[in-house]
């Protein structure tokens, strides 16, 4: 049965249904509906909701709870996610599973509370100190907010790793029909490594400090092997009308929805455009993008940033096709009309060089 839900609240409900009984967070717009929803829902489900004194405290509470074996989540937006980076590095280093939601807003600094996508680098490059990556899932609808939050818990437990859900202010505030997944039991899974008191077994220690260089290198090697496994196993993207497309747009999240409207509009005018929408931003779905370009003559990346994902697209396309970029910043959305104009400008071959080639 479909029900109408706001993106942020849908994330909260999906977390509960994924068996999460633990949330630590701190207020920041435009994600406040997540903690607000869970502050009622979690205690009702016998879980823990705690409003922490800061983002830093919140992510460290997540650390403690994850180490104690719980399915646990936190959420925030740009400035708060920056504060959490130390903790995310520690979580990655100590190999603790958790879900972190970033409802992106305009930056840098305090920026704005309007939507943005400029935390792409932060999310896909690890974000904190040291060599690590986290899986990053980018929903583009309220249904996907639900599905990917649910999925994020599964991935986090499978790889013993923090998993990021990267959405933006539009998706957080948007209401759409959703079908909710079945409610899993609040099963924290089989986690023999968790620190729960060493009853009947040898003690467990959760740590990320290895003062012996050889030991730390071995630990890093093990982490890199895990990240390699994620790259092989977790790749997802949506193809939209790319089979015969001469111009292939690449966009994620809300930018992809708007780009899809632009593709539909120019198709009406006979322009062969298509869209590739990365769903896993890290691992970046390189193979799926490469297979989306059979007739492509050029690629246009659309983002709500000054150009971040475009770097991954260029690495993937590897000089075989020209890659162009169109972006808006400041909390502004690219309009479908603006994107149509960009597509049409690319049709005029002579002017290609004069466009801002990314």
């Amino acid at each position, binding site marked *: 049965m*479909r*029900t*109408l839900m706001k993106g942020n609240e849908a994330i909260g409900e999906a977390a509960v249904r994924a068996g999460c009984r633990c949330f630590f967070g701190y207020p920041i*717009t*435009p994600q406040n509906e997540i903690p607000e929803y869970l502050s009622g829902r979690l205690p009702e489900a016998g879980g823990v909701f705690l409003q922490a004194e800061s983002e830093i405290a919140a992510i460290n509470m997540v650390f403690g709870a994850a180490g104690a074996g719980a399915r646990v989540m936190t959420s925030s937006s740009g400035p708060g996610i920056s504060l959490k980076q130390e903790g995310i590095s520690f979580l990655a280093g100590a190999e603790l599973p958790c879900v972190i939601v970033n409802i992106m807003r305009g930056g840098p600094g305090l920026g704005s*509370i*309007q939507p943005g996508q400029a935390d792409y680098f932060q999310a896909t490059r690890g974000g904190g100190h040291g060599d690590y990556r986290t899986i990053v899932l980018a929903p583009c609808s309220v249904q996907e907010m639900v599905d990917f939050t649910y999925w994020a818990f599964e991935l986090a437990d499978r790889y013993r790793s923090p998993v990021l859900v990267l959405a933006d*202010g*539009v998706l957080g*505030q*948007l*209401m*759409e*029909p959703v079908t909710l997944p079945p409610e899993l039991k609040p099963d924290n899974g089989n986690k023999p490594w968790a620190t729960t008191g060493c009853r009947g077994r040898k003690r467990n220690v959760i740590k990320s400090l290895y003062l012996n260089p050889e030991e730390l290198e071995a630990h890093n090697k093990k982490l890199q092997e895990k990240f390699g496994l994620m790259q092989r196993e977790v790749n997802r993207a949506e193809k939209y009308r790319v089979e015969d497309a001469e111009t292939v747009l690449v966009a994620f999240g*809300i930018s992809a*929805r*708007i780009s*899809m*409207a632009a593709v*539909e509009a120019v198709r009406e005018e006979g322009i062969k455009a298509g869209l590739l929408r990365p769903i896993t931003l890290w691992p970046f779905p390189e193979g799926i993008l490469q297979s989306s370009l059979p007739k492509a003559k050029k690629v246009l990346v659309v983002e709500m940033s000054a150009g971040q994902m475009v770097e991954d697209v260029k690495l993937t396309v590897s000089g075989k096709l020209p890659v162009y970029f169109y972006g808006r910043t400041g909390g502004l*959305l690219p*309009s*479908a*009309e603006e994107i149509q104009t960009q597509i049409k400008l690319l049709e005029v071959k002579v002017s290609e060089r004069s466009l801002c080639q990314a």
Partner: protein
Amino acid sequence: MQHEVLVAGFGGQGVLLTGQLLAYGGLLENKEVTWFPSYGPEMRGGTANCIVIVSGKRIASPVVERPGAALVFNQPSLLKFEAKVKPGGLLLVNSALATQLPERKDLYTYLVPANEVAQSLGQILVANMVMLGAYLELTGAVTFSSVLKALEKTLSEQRRHLLSVNREAMEQGAQLVSQQARKYHTR
């Protein structure tokens, strides 16, 4: 057919709720719907608006620059959003609060004295439903009964008795625009 409508007014006029009822009504008819509110520092006591899309197929973007229709509940919203409506689109103005006339000649414009109608029904809070009734009469985006079903779900037990005055408000809104029939845009 994709219906896109912007609903705008003061906070407290039921702007966001109007949009939600429309979206909810669409959901009950198994249509695809989106509801997207403006959000910002003005969320307390200032202006409010939302964009609702009701469609028979997957909705690409929930954010539309130029909606096919706008329901403006007050003068500031008229000034701000008249220019946004798609040429040939629909503009419904709560003429009880928006005292100036719309300027554009390329829209189907209807003046609906929603507050006055609501007052005559003894329930000023249903002015938004007068506007919604007018919009639905002109577009058929969803049926009255779907909206009322949606409203019923949002009303608490003690407030269920308000259903009938809401229905009456929608019907009067509908009646007002069916009498006017597209004449104002030529004025």
